[in-house]
C-alpha cells in the first residue's frame, strides 16, 4: 500500500501530509474593500496630486545641484566652500555632488511610489494560476517529437557514431588544461628559497641602512630586509614577500631554546616575518611577554622558545634566520632560512 495519510496517492512515495478533518475550513474569500482618503475625498485627492508633482519638482532641483557641483564645488578646481585642492574641498565636492544626485533620484522614486499608493487603484485583483506541466496531449506530443528526432538521427541504430561522439566530447574539455598551464610557471624550488645568503647584512626595512648589534636595545624590534634587496632587484615585491624578517633582542637568560639562541647573536634573534598560517606579516610584538602576534588570524609565537606557536591557527614556528656579526659589527645572515617560510604547503619538506 503506497497511500498518503489523507487517502490520496502521491506520484512519489508516501507523503507525510496529515489529512484535514472534516475537510478543513472553507476559504472565506477576499474581505470587503476599504477605500482610501483620496478615493472618497476630492480634497485629499487634490492634495495627493500636488504632493506627487512637488516631489518631481524637487528632483529637478537635485539634478541642477548635481550638475552645478561639477563646476563650482570641485575637488581640485573651483570650490565655493573650501580652499582649492584641500582635503576639505574634496569633502565638500563629494557631499554636494552626492546630495544633488541623491535628491534627484530619491524624489523621482518617492513621487512615483506616492502616486501609486494614493491615486492608483488599490483594489486587489485576482489572477488564476495554471499548472506548469503541459497537458497530457502536449506531453505526449513532446515525447513523440523527441522519439521521432532520435529515430531520424539514428542514435539508437548507430552506436559507432554515438560512442565516438561521447569520446570526442569527453576529450575536448581536457584541452583546456593546455592554455591553463600557461597562466604561470611551475613552482620548482621557488618556494624553498629566499633572497637571504650568507654574509648579507640585515638592513632596516624602507631606509635600507644596516644594523649594528650594538644598536639593538634589549626588547626592541626591527623590521629588516637583506641589504642587497632594492627596487632594482628583479621580482622586487616577490622577494620582499619572502625575505621579510624581524629581529628582536631578548635577555639570553630567558631563552628556553638552546638551538634558537645559538642561531642568534647575544640574544638578538631573527625570525621570518611571514606567518606560517596563510602568510600575513607577523607585525605585532609584545615586549612584556615576548610574544609575536599575527594581526590577521591571531597566531601567537613565543620568541623565547624558537617562535613556537602558543595560540591560534598556525602550526609551525616562524623559521629562524641564522645570524652573526661581521668584522665591522653589523648583523649579517649566515645563510638562508633552514626551511620554507610562509604558509605550509604539500611538498614543503621535499628537498628542492
Amino acid at each position, binding site marked *: 500500500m503506497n497511500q498518503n495519510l489523507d487517502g490520496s496517492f502521491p506520484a512519489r512515495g508516501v507523503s507525510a*501530509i496529515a489529512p484535514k478533518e472534516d475537510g478543513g*475550513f472553507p476559504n472565506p474569500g477576499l474581505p470587503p474593500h476599504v477605500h482610501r482618503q483620496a478615493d472618497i475625498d476630492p480634497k485629499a485627492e487634490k492634495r495627493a496630486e500636488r504632493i506627487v508633482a512637488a516631489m518631481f519638482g524637487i528632483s529637478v532641483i537635485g539634478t541642477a545641484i548635481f550638475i552645478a557641483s561639477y563646476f563650482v564645488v570641485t575637488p581640485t578646481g573651483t570650490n565655493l566652500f573650501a580652499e582649492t585642492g584641500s582635503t576639505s574641498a574634496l569633502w565638500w565636492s563629494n557631499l554636494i555632488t552626492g546630495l544633488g544626485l541623491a535628491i534627484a*533620484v530619491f524624489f*523621482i522614486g518617492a513621487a512615483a511610489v506616492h502616486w501609486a499608493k494614493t491615486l492608483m487603484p488599490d483594489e486587489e*485583483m485576482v489572477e488564476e494560476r495554471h499548472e506548469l506541466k503541459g497537458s497530457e496531449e502536449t506531453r505526449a506530443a513532446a515525447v513523440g517529437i523527441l522519439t521521432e528526432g532520435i529515430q531520424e538521427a539514428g542514435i539508437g541504430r548507430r552506436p559507432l557514431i554515438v560512442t565516438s561522439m561521447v569520446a570526442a566530447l569527453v576529450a575536448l574539455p581536457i584541452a583546456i588544461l593546455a592554455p591553463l598551464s600557461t597562466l604561470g610557471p611551475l613552482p620548482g624550488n621557488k618556494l624553498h628559497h629566499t633572497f637571504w645568503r650568507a654574509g648579507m647584512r640585515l638592513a632596516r626595512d624602507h631606509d635600507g641602512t644596516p644594523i649594528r648589534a650594538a644598536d639593538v636595545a634589549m626588547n626592541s624590534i626591527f623590521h629588516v630586509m637583506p641589504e642587497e634587496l632594492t627596487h632594482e632587484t628583479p621580482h622586487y615585491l616577490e622577494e620582499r614577500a619572502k625575505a621579510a624578517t624581524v629581529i628582536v633582542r631578548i635577555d639570553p637568560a630567558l631563552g628556553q631554546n638552546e638551538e634558537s639562541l645559538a642561531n642568534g647573536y647575544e640574544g638578538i634573534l631573527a625570525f621570518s616575518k611571514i606567518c606560517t598560517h*596563510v602568510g600575513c606579516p607577523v607585525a605585532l610584538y609584545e615586549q612584556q611577554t615576548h610574544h609575536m602576534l599575527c594581526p590577521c588570524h591571531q597566531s601567537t609565537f613565543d620568541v623565547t622558545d624558537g617562535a613556537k606557536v602558543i595560540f591560534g591557527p598556525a602550526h609551525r614556528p616562524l623559521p629562524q634566520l641564522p645570524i652573526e656579526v661581521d668584522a665591522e659589527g653589523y648583523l649579517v645572515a649566515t645563510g638562508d632560512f633552514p626551511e620554507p617560510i610562509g604558509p605550509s604547503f604539500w611538498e614543503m619538506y621535499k628537498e628542492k
Partner: protein
Amino acid sequence: MTTTSDSRTTGTGEKNGRMMKLGAVGGDWLDQRVGGAGLVKFFARKIFPDHWSFMFGEVALYSFVILLISGTFLTMFFVPSMDEVVYDGPYEALQGAEVSRAFASTMYISFELRGGLLFRQMHHWAALVFMVAIFVHMFRVFFTGAFRKPRELNWLVGFSLMVLGMVAGFTGYSLPDDVLSGNGLRVIDGLMKAIPIIGTYLSMLLFGGEFPGTDIIPRLFTIHILLVPAAILGLIAIHLVMLVAHKHTHYPGPGRTDRNVVGFPLFPVYTAKAGGFFFLVFGIITLISATTAINAIWVYGPYDPSPVSAGSQPDWYMLWTDGGLRLMPGWEFTVFGYVISLNMLIPFAVYGGLLAFLALYPFLEAWVTGDDREHHVLDLPYNTPVRTGIGVAWISVYLILALGATNDLIALKLQLSINDLTWLFRIGIFVAPVLLFWITKRVCLSLQRQKRNTVLHGEETSRVVRTESGEMLEIHEPLNEYDRWVLVQHDDYRPLKAGNGVSSLRAKATSFFFKDRIEPVTPTELREAMEHAGHEKHVIDEATGGDYRIPAEKAHH
C-alpha cells in the same frame, strides 16, 4: 509598446485624443515589428502580491543596476596594472611613494576626478547593500517555504547568485592594490597552497608566478568586470523568467489560494511602485556615499608585503570565511613527508558543507515530507518549527564565524582577552546552533498553541466579570472569519512509520521534523468551542445585563 500604454493614463479632452492617436500609430508600428501588443497583453496585467518582505529581492536587483552604472564609470578611469609609478597626486602623505598604477589611478579617481570619490563610494556601498539584500531575501524565502515545488530550481539560481556576489565583491575590493586588498590576496595565496598535491601549482597559475607578481590585478579585473557580472546578469534573467512563469507566491489570507495570485497589476501600479523603488534605493545609496567614507585606501597605503595593521577585516560578506581560519587550532600533519594542513582544510569543509546544506535544503525537505503538490501560499514561519529552527541554527553558525573574524576588534572595544574570545567562539560554534534550534522550535510551538487558543476562544478583552456565584469570567471577542482563516488554513504533517514504502531513515527524518506538533483547529472543535462560548456569554449577560462596560466607563457616561 510604451506609447500605447501611455494613452491609458492621460487625462481627457482633445490633448488626450491626439495622444491616443499618436500612441496608436507608435504602438501599431512596434506591434508589426516586435509583436508589442502580445507582450503588453501578457505582461501589463500580470498580478504581483504586495508585502514588505517581497522588497528584499528588489533591493538586490536595483543595487546590482547601481553597481553596473557606477562600475562602468569607474572602468573609464581605473588602470588595472601593477606597473610601479611614483605617486605625485594631491594627497601629501603618499607623495613620492612607489605605488602600482592600479593604486595611483584609484587615488586619482578619489582625489582629483570630479564625482570620482562619490561613484567609487557608491560602487562599494552598493556592493555591501547588494549582499545584505541577497541574504535577507534568501532567508525570507527560506523561512516562508517559498523554495518548495515548483521553485526548487529558482532557489538554486538564487543560491548561485549569492555565491557569485561574494566572488564579485572579493575580486572587486582586491583591485585598488592597497595594503588591505593585498593582504586579502595573501590569504587566498596561503589557502590555495594548503590544498593537497596541486596547491602550489594553483597558486603559481593564479598569480602568474610567485605572490604577488604583476599579473593578478589585470586578471582579477577581467573576472570582476566581465566574467562574473555576465554570469550574474544571465542568472538574474533566468531568476526573473522563472518568477514570471511561476507567478509570485503570496502570504496566506482570505481569498488567497494555491490556484490564484492576489495583488496589483504590473501596469500601472507596480510600474510606479517598483520603478519608483529603484530610484529610492538609488537615492539612499547615493546619500550614504555622499556622507560616509568607505574603503579609504589612502589610509591603508599601497600594498607592500611587509606592513600590515591590526584590524584587517574583509568586507562583511566575506567575514565568515575568515572567521573559520581564526577559530581553528593549528592542526597540521605530515604524512610520508607531505603536509596536510587541517587548520585550512577543515574550515574549507565547513564552508562547503554550510553552503551545500543551504543549496540542497529544498530537496531534503521535499524528501522528508513527500509532498509533491505545487505550493504558492507561503508558510508562516511558526507553522514550520523545525525548518525555522534549522534556519536560525544555520544563521547562528554563520554569525559566529563572522564574529570570529572580528575577534580582534571586539577584544579591543570591550577590553577582553582575544584568547578568551576565540575560545568562546570555538565553543559557541558547537553549542549555539543546537541551543538556538531548540529555543526557536519551542517558541514556534508556543506561538502555534497561542494562535490555536485565539481561534477557539477569541481575543481576550481584559474585561472580567464576576457572577453571583463568585465565578470570574473574562469576556472574549471571537475572531471574524477573515482573521480566523489565516490561523486555520495551514497544512499539517505527521511522522511516518517505517515500512510500506517508507525507509527507516525517512521515518526517523519525519519524526525529527514532525514529532512535536500542535494539531490545527478542526471545524468540529471550533463548533464545540463556540457552543461553550455561547453558554459562557449567557452567564456573563445575566451578570452584566448585556452591558460590558466597566464601572468607570459607566460613571463617565
